[in-house]
């Protein structure tokens, strides 16, 4: 979690560092929209701890935490975010479209549309007789998309080894779920499709770990799909530059930050010392720094490269 947080914090810093003019979202070494995942680390870490190289993840527009937790190479990912030829996608995808075939990791910037794709990956895994699983990640706002419901139905009908993860960070950009969703529980919706659905409260990484472990075990054993809704926290804006004027819970955000909270638990239980936590943070900082140096030192693509890769 610390590694992810240090990464996102540094990207935040670098993203804004050279925006000139500051309002120009396309300016700077990291251009374009930027959706950072700070506060949502427990979801990624608790789930990905159960996954191996052959297991697939489809992530949404806010993908960095799941990418890093699933083992996507930080250098290649950072180079992609910087739009360099050494990037995961040679500069063609960017931060919302990270693809790492080795880790079966992909993103879609279109809300909930990674859900059906994960079903197809799981279908292939099942057809081939493997015990691999596919994990589909989306936010609570995505659960109102038709694609979400079609995917849940398909997965339940075909008993696919899929784990549907809903990251409920309370805000679909600016709209709270109660204003958009007649039934605010996605565990209920899972039940409607005949699959178990659970909700993990309080952004608790150990609880996510346990629930995800059980869901992954079920999927690997051929028991079919599960849905886990994780009540998590969007620590920052929907995208960088979001002033969050609509947000009514900003005063409680800091106290809900999962990293200091979990660090305190680990220290209290004697699992880690403050010094060890500092070491973890320093190690992460060094790795992040190296990744950013790698990205900046990498070549930018030639304009004509845009014409490549339309077809295989």
């Amino acid at each position: 979690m610390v590694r992810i947080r240090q990464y996102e914090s540094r990207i935040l810093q670098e993203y804004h560092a050279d925006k000139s003019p500051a309002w120009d979202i396309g300016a700077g070494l990291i251009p374009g929209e930027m959706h950072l995942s700070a506060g949502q680390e427990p979801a990624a870490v608790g789930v990905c701890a159960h996954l191996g190289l052959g297991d697939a993840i489809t992530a949404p527009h806010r993908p960095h935490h799941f990418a890093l937790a699933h083992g996507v190479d930080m250098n290649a990912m950072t180079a992609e975010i910087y739009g360099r030829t050494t990037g995961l996608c040679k500069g063609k995808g960017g931060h919302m479209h990270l693809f790492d075939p080795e880790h079966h990791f992909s993103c879609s910037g279109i809300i909930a549309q990674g859900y059906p794709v994960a079903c197809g990956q799981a279908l292939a895994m099942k057809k081939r007789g493997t015990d691999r699983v596919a994990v589909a990640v989306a936010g609570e706002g995505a659960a109102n998309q038709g694609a979400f419901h079609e995917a849940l139905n398909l997965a339940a009908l075909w008993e696919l080894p899929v784990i549907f993860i809903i990251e409920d960070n309370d805000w679909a950009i600016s709209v709270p779920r109660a204003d958009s969703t007649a039934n605010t529980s996605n565990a209920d919706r899972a039940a409607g499709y005949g699959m178990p659905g659970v909700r993990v409260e309080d952004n608790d990484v150990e609880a996510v770990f346990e629930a995800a472990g059980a869901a992954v075990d079920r999927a690997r054993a051929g028991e079919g799909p599960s849905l886990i809704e994780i009540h998590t926290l969007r620590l920052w804006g929907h995208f960088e530059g979001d002033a969050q004027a609509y947000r009514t819970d900003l005063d409680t955000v800091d106290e809900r930050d999962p990293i200091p909270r979990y660090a305190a638990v680990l220290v209290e239980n004697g699992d880690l010392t403050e010094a060890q936590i500092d070491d973890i943070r320093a190690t992460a900082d060094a790795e992040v720094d190296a990744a950013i140096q790698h990205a900046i030192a990498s070549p930018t693509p030639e304009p004509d490269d845009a014409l490549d890769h339309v077809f295989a």
Partner: protein
Amino acid sequence: MGRTTVGVVANPASARDVRRLVALGGTMTTHDKLNRLQRLLVGLAGGGVERVLAMPDRSGITVGLRRLAARPSAASWPELEFIEQPVGGTAADTRRATEAMVAAGVGAIVVLGGDGTNRIVAGASGDVPLVSISTGTNNAFPLPVESTVAGLAAGLVARDDGCRRAGTHRAKQLVVRHGSRVERALVDVAISDGDRVGSGAVWDGGTIRELYLCFAEPDAIGLSAIGGHLHPIGRREPGGLAVAMGEPVVATIHPPIGPGLVQPIGVRSIDVLVPDTPVEVRAASGVVAIDGERLFRFGSDDRPTITLRPDGPVVVSAASVLTHASTTGLLATPAARATTATAPASHDPTDPPPEGNHHDDARSARSVHRDGPHPAVRVPDPAGVPR
């Protein structure tokens, strides 16, 4: 206080935890909970409750209930008010809401949840009677009761008329002390292996080393079934039970320790717990789970103690309340309380105006049937009602 008020704690998170994945825990949907709340509110109105003080949440109960309360069909409900308090989506919400309800002087608190929810409420409810409606995964503590009937019973208890004395009793509780920490259990305290608190829920009977029980019913679900299968002890009996697991095994039982989860449990010993006598946990280290939820861990130098006490929460037996109310005529005079509770109050305009409406608040217009008996439906003396 003025108007008859009842508190309602509906846990939006109940029946949502990992036991749907590791056991066959069912899903009590938000819709199901709202349905029970609707029935409850109709029952509360029928029981003479004028105001409901409810716990707020951000998971669909508050929003759903507000929408339902605005419908014409809800016109006869008590006034519905949500406590103003921060909503964190944790057990702290339940504790804060219960404290606010007690401070507001509610006559009863209705709890929609399972054993875990009731435990949190009982920690703050003091002398206020609890009516529990099962919407949890394990529901050993709540007695089975239909929600409309629960509302009637809660209303009758809140208005008293002898219903408190006749229809409530103090439950037992287990008090767990660990350093400065004090926790209370309504059903069971389990000492298990491992060092992680994790998602909280207990599902692996093989990890349990010791078990302390307020009561042990053979037909219960959850850890208390372990005791129930060995040595039944009723809720109203004075003692409790302590069970130790592991070698040397003197008996193996197969209790349902979770929904769809029957596991062999090897038992080493059983002891009866004597009230007000602290017992020290035997295990050198482990995790303490209370009412099915893992709460904290301990080491060899700080073993918790457990004490069975008779001073648990005041709980309502709906059957006892309604029996008392029926036999003392409370259900018949004043008349027709419940008969109008499901629809907006209306009556034949040719009828004479209702009598006995002593309330001057804005809602009195739709409270007429509750507050004043209609002459046309007045029934004979209760003594004359055949039993």
